[in-house]
């Protein structure tokens, strides 16, 4: 079993929240999506990973160029700039909000699929965050649709407006006014919590799947940072929760992250300085011995 194949089960754990959200959201907003178009978009990452490496790197550029040309052809045909000759007349898609929603939803699924096939932990975590961003937005939209009975477009406008307002007040006032998912409870919450714990398990497992000589030693040392990090993380989370009452959660988290990054940098610098000092001593000894 090669290394990339070994990563797939671990990546599935990491991407599990996104997968769960896909299956939860699609039935709720399927009327606002072009399912055939969605199927075509979802097929792209699978085509990429099933084709030989020489061809696979051209899949996304070719898909992007083809999509752009189809949109261009549709626009030019609709405005009458070019006449709809036999084939060009058929190669068009509806230029509607539903197409845009389908495209962005499809993009989220592409991120999730790429996360499953990612070869490194940073790749899978990045794709998790990108796809979660998309699907949590969709979750908020679906919730708004269900609770208010408005159309998808109206619900999406409301959610994106609240997010924009949150960003605006953050930049202008230093705190957030409206958060789309802050005080909302969903049926899927307990299941999402389970998948989030899968993410943590997959994240830790990803460091131990490589069959190295030092795997068991690293595995023995791994609990220390996990326990320390989890304790600090829970403390910060409680702090953020308290600060959220005053709209200062971004400020609180920023301070916590900054303190941690300073601590990381400081510890790294002192280790680097010692390494440099030892290197200088070694070089001096090697020079003395005529080696360099």
């Amino acid at each position, binding site marked *: 079993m090669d290394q990339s194949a070994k990563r797939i089960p671990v990546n599935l754990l990491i991407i599990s929240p996104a997968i769960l959200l896909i299956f939860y959201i699609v039935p709720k907003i399927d009327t606002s999506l072009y399912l055939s178009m969605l199927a075509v978009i979802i097929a792209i990452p699978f085509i990429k990973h099933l084709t030989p490496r020489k061809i696979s790197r051209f899949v996304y550029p070719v898909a992007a160029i083809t999509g752009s040309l189809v949109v261009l052809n549709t626009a030019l045909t609709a405005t009458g700039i070019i006449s709809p000759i036999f084939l060009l007349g058929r190669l068009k898609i509806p230029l509607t909000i539903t197409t845009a929603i389908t495209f962005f939803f499809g993009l989220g699924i592409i991120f999730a699929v790429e996360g499953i096939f990612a070869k490194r932990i940073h790749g899978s975590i990045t794709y998790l965050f990108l796809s979660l961003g998309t699907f949590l937005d969709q979750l908020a939209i679906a919730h708004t649709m269900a609770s208010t009975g408005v159309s998808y477009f109206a619900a999406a406008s409301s959610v994106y407006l609240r*997010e924009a307002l949150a960003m605006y007040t953050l930049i202008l006032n230093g705190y957030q006014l409206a958060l*789309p998912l802050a005080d909302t409870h969903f049926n899927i919450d307990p299941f999402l919590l389970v998948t989030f714990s899968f993410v943590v398990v997959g994240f830790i497992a990803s460091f131990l799947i490589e069959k190295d000589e030092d795997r068991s030693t690293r595995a023995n040392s791994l609990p220390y*940072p996990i326990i*320390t990090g989890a304790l*600090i*993380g829970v403390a910060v989370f409680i702090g953020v929760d308290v600060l959220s009452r005053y709209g200062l959660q971004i400020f609180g988290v920023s301070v916590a992250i900054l303190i*941690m990054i300073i601590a*990381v940098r400081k510890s*790294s610098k002192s280790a680097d300085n010692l390494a440099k000092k030892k290197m200088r001593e070694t070089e001096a000894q090697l020079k003395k011995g005529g080696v360099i």
Partner: protein
Amino acid sequence: MIRKSGYLLLAILSYGIFESILLGYPYYIALAVILFFVVSSDIILFNRGPALDLYNVDTERIIPGKSSRKFQAVDIEIVFRNKGKKRVYFHYFDTLSDVFKSSGEYEGFLSLEPGDEVKKHYSIESIAIGKYKIGPVKVYTQDPMKLCLVEYTIPRIDEVSVAPAIADIHTQRSERLSNFVFYMGVHYSRKVGQGYDFYGVRQYTESDDFRYVAWNRYGAINGEDLYIKQMEEEKPIDVIFAMDYSWNVNQGTAEKRMYDRIVNVVINASYAILKNHDGVGFMVDSSVHDHFIAPTKSEESVKNLEKLVSEIRPDGTFNILPLMEKIKKRIKKNALIFLISPFSYPESFNGGNPKDYKIGKRVFIFLVDPRGFTESKEDPVYEKLLTSASLVERGYLNNVAKFFQSIGLKSSVARENDLLMRLMSEYRYGKMTNEGY
């Protein structure tokens, strides 16, 4: 030192935190925050612990015999000690020259408790002659998530001298290769004329010394004919191999190096010459090396050469004119000088005044073609390029050879496979034309 992947992961997790806070979904915030702090804690705990403890590792290398021959295995024991008060885990590898084929535990992973001592064994086998350094020992450790790396070079250096392999010196053993191959059964060590040993008879001429008349052959054919005895004397000659030992000869592949091959050929030629009762001496020359081994008719000079080349490696630049000057100063007796160099760099051969090359000795120059010391590949484009480059080099060497011939120095371009035959051929020619002055 935090790896790029560490910074990347921290950046991604920071992005995740801000995205989660903008969305306001509490579980997502909790996930992103916990992951960020787990990764940060891993880096901090590593930098404060194992990264510092690594410097408590000490090593000692034990090599029973520091002199060996090519292809001969040398056993090495390497001892690791943890001088600290905490457990230390690390990967290690002993730095070795590419001339060594190594087997055993020259690299690996160790976990040492405080005060622990672990011995690892490996063996090396050199594929080239010379003196080579072993070490330093490099140790490195990484955090559980492989986001940081700390490396420590322990300045533990040893040296191993490698002499030519017995297998390479085939002419040392007469049962392997008869001198007949080189001399075609003719022993050219004597000069006909005055001497103590009887050579033959010929017809008497008026200028001959009457004391050597062979009276027992008088009148053998027509009753009046007179013959004279021809005597011969030993006419030994010294052969000096003047070798370029500069960067010029430090070329070739991992398996086949030019200096190694030249030394082998010279040693083989030397043993063959010794068997013919002539002396051999050596000059090993470059801007860094200036070694002269005086000619002897015993194996002593060859053994000295073997010892010398096991202690040095090609270094510095080479220029033929200073070498000619040294030959002129050092070689006083009648000798054949075999100068061997690939003349690969322009400074090796600056033309100069033809008078500078007149040193009053019989000098034969062998220009070594580097074609045999290039790596061969199955790629046809590479082979075509190599052939083209080799033809250019060959043309250059032929022109240098022509110049030497134009000023009266016998020279030829030799490839690695025919260098020995060319040396012996010129030796045979030199013996035949030896005037004995």
